[in-house]
C-alpha cells in the first residue's frame, strides 16, 4: 500500500471524527486485507496531520489491555494510540455529545513519566522507577466506525478509538500503592455500573506501559519524559447518554468526574 493510500484512509477517518459521523470500517470496503502494521501506518498519518494542524501530543494510550478484550479480538498483544491536547477535559467538566459519535467511558490509571523509557526488554518494575506520578482518569473512547464494529487493524488505524480524557487532579507517587489491587468503581448518576482492580490491565498497569515501550522500540521510538500515558481500562466501557453524571472513584488515588451535555 502506498503512502498516498495511507493518507487517504487517514483523511477518511479524521473526516468521520471532525464531522461527528460514523464511517464504514476500513476492512469493509476500502482495504479488506488491511494488516495491523498498515493500521499503524494510517494512525501515523493521522498523528502527523494533527501535529501539522498545531495539535500537541499529551501521550500515548494503551487499548485492549484486558484479557476479555484480547480474547474478544483474538489477539495476544494490546494496541496503542495517541491522546492530543484538544481531547483533554477538565476534572468536573462537561463532555458534549454533539462533539462525538457514540462515546463510551472507562476508568483507567494514567502514568506521568519522569525519564525517557526505551525498549526492548522493559519491565513493569523499570517503568515504575521512571514514573513520576500516577493519576486516575476517565477515558472516553469513540470509535469512528459504525456500531463500534471493527477488526484489530481497523481500530489501530482509528487511533485506538481515542476521543476524550478527564484526568484527576491530585497526582500520587506510584511507590505508595500496589497498583494491581487498586480498586476502581465507575458510577453513572450515582449507580455503580462497572468496577475492577488494576490487575485487570495485563496483571499490573505498569506492565502495559512496559509493553508500550517495547512496541514503540520496534519502530525506533520511545516513551518520553513528560508523557502522560493512559495504561488501559480497569473497568468495562459504558455508553454515555445526555445528562449523565459520571464518577470514577479510585482507592487512594481520588475521584474523577464529568457530566454529559447535549
Amino acid at each position: 500500500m502506498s503512502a498516498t493510500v495511507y493518507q487517504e484512509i487517514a483523511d477518511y477517518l479524521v473526516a468521520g471524527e471532525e464531522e461527528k459521523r460514523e464511517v464504514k470500517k476500513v476492512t469493509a470496503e476500502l482495504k479488506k486485507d488491511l494488516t495491523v502494521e498498515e493500521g499503524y501506518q494510517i494512525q501515523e498519518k493521522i498523528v502527523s496531520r494533527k501535529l501539522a494542524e498545531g495539535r500537541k501530543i499529551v501521550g500515548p494510550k494503551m487499548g485492549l489491555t484486558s484479557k476479555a478484550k484480547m480474547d474478544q479480538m483474538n489477539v495476544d498483544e494490546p494496541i496503542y494510540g495517541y491522546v492530543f491536547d484538544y481531547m483533554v477535559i477538565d476534572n468536573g467538566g462537561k463532555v458534549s455529545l454533539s462533539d462525538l459519535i457514540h462515546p463510551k467511558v472507562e476508568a483507567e490509571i494514567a502514568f506521568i513519566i519522569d525519564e525517557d523509557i526505551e525498549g526492548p526488554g522493559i519491565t513493569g518494575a523499570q517503568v515504575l522507577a521512571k514514573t513520576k506520578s500516577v493519576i486516575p482518569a476517565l477515558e472516553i473512547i469513540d470509535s469512528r466506525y459504525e456500531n463500534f464494529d471493527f477488526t484489530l487493524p481497523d481500530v489501530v488505524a482509528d487511533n485506538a478509538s481515542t476521543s476524550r480524557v478527564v484526568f484527576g487532579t491530585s497526582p500520587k507517587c506510584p511507590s505508595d500503592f500496589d497498583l494491581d489491587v487498586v480498586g476502581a468503581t465507575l458510577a453513572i448518576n450515582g449507580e455503580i455500573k462497572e468496577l475492577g482492580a488494576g490487575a485487570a490491565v495485563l496483571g499490573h498497569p505498569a506492565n502495559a506501559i512496559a509493553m508500550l515501550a517495547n512496541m514503540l522500540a520496534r519502530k525506533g521510538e520511545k516513551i518520553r519524559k513528560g508523557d502522560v500515558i493512559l495504561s488501559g481500562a480497569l473497568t468495562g466501557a459504558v455508553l454515555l447518554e445526555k445528562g449523565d453524571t459520571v464518577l470514577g472513584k479510585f482507592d487512594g488515588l481520588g475521584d474523577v468526574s464529568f457530566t454529559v451535555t447535549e
Partner: protein
Amino acid sequence: MATEVAMKQKKYAESLLEAENTLVGIPPLTEADPKLTVEEAYSIQLENIKKKTADGQTIIGKKIGLTSKAMQNLLGVDEPDYGHLLDSMVIENGGLVPKDKVLLPKVEGEIAFVLKKDLKGPNVTTLDVLQATDYILPSIEIVDSRVKDWKIKLPDTIADNASSAFYALGGKPVKVEDVDMELLGMVLTKNGQLVNTGVGAAALGNPAQCVAWLANRLADFDISLNAGEVILSGALSAAVEAKEGDTFTAKFAHLGEVSVHF
C-alpha cells in the same frame, strides 16, 4: 399438616447430608417440589446445622451469598442469601482443600468480618456494622453444591447451606477505619495466572452493607450475629472452578494475601 411439612424438610435435609457424605449430587429439590419456599429452605438448612452441632461441630459464623448483581440476575432473585460457617469448614491459609470432601468446587475472594459486638436486627445499618466490627481479613471461600451440576434455584442453594464448603482466612487483621472497603481491590490468581479482579463495591455496593442485610434478615428467625463470629461478606468476583492440583491466591489491597491448594 405441620408434621407433613416437617417430615418433608427432614427428608430433604437428609438427602443433602447424604450427598455431602457420599459425594453424589442430588437432583434439585425444586425439581420434585417446585413450590419449595425460601423459608422452608432455611428450615432445611438449619436442620442439618443442628445435626452437625449435635455431632460436636461448632458454629464459627455466617456466610453471605448472592451479593452480586450478576449472581442475583442469574438466579432471578433480588436479595442475597446466607449459610452457616462451621469449624469443620476451616482451611488454614495456604492449606489443602480435601478432594474427598468436594464435588464441583469453585473459588471466590471475599472480605471476612470478625465482630466485637453482637448485631441484632431489624434496622441494623452499615454504620452499625462498621462499629461492631473488630477487624476484617482477606478470605477465600470454596463453594460447592450438593445439588448435581450446580443446577440450583434459590431454595436449593439455601437448603444446601448456601452452597458453602470451606474457607480460608488471611493472617493480617485490619481495622475498618484504615480502608475504604467500597474501593478495596482484589486480584484472584490460579497457578500464578490472573483469573479475575474485583472490588468491595461488587458486594451490594459495600461489604459492610451485606453484613447489615444479614443481621436484618436473621432477625426474621430471631437470630443475632454475635461478638467473635466470622462473617464472609460475599464474593468480589465471579466464582472460578477448581481442579485437583490448582493453587488459588487472592491478593487484596491493604489486607494481604490468602491462598488454598486443591
